[in-house]
């Protein structure tokens, strides 16, 4: 797995080094670079849309306070996902295990094809709820695969499993989710 994610400008590693050296703008750049992906990951894992900004912010707070524990052997984004995932789990526990997944948070219905849009809206909502109810590893493998486009070996590295096991988790996740659409 690559230790940093370069998007045509400074790598994550370079930004972290700059941040450690006192360059505060490097922190802002890392937020801009990974904030949305982190928000989508948390939202797809069941966090309410109204709490995404707070969760993302708290994740970055914790990440920057614990920056010395990031050794650069995993992608910075994956490390953030781990911190954010733990934060969401803590929140879920504090709420007594209740998880309310709204199904009206997707885009408004397209009036040009209202029937088709209602069906698409319904299916998207089912998939989102279905993802939140997957076992943790299945959910994380599925999201890293379809939203981040990571290959199995990188997913395995991120989640501390093997590429073969990651493939199996992905297969089971897809099978479960397919069942929600029939």
């Amino acid at each position, binding site marked *: 797995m690559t230790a940093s994610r370069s998007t045509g400008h400074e790598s994550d590693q370079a930004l972290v080094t700059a941040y450690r050296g006192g360059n505060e*703008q490097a922190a*802002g750049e890392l937020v801009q670079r990974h*904030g949305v992906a982190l928000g989508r990951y948390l939202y797809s894992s069941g966090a309410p*849309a109204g709490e995404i900004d707070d969760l993302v912010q708290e994740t970055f707070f914790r990440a920057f306070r614990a920056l010395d524990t990031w050794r650069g052997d995993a992608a910075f984004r994956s490390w953030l996902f781990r911190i954010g995932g733990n934060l969401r789990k803590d929140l879920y526990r504090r709420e007594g295990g209740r998880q309310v997944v709204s199904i009206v948070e997707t885009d408004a219905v397209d009036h040009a094809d209202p029937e088709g849009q209602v069906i698409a809206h319904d299916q998207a909502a089912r998939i989102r709820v279905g993802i939140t109810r997957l076992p943790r590893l299945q959910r994380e493998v599925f999201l890293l695969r*379809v*939203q981040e486009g990571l290959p199995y070996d990188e997913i395995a590295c991120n989640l501390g499993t093997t590429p073969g096991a990651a493939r199996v988790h992905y297969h089971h996740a897809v099978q479960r989710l*397919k069942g929600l*659409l029939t």
Partner: protein
Amino acid sequence: MTHPIHLSDRMPQVARGAASWSPEEMAHLTSCAECRAEWQVVELGATVGADLTDRMDLAGIAARVVADRARRTPLPKALSFRRASWVVATAAAAALLIMVARPTSAPESAPAVALLPELEGMSAEELELVFDVLPAADGWTVPGTNLGDLDDGELERVLRTLEG
């Protein structure tokens, strides 16, 4: 119907717009209900939360993250403002006690300062700061000038002397 193995592996890339289906793959998806269902799951899964891009206040989050760092940057010598204020206040109290309690014609062995329990919780570095601002008192014999050089026993004796 046989399912092309690579089709499943390519689905995430196509769903994210990083690749597209070939005509043969498209034909298979049209005719195979099982692969079509899998494609639908992947396609929908890839779009969950896609609209967050417009709804998140990334600039605000970035500003607060930077501000959090500024709040947490330690002062030189790792002495926080609150701790430093406490040290100065304790030193001032100690100085006041010494001036009030110092006897006008005390024997050399008499204690020069009243009990000051706040001193017990201080580190050697903080005690040094206190001593730096204390007025010189007659009859004090502090072994050495640098408290950081003292061992625990010596430091204890200094404290006992101070507390009487």
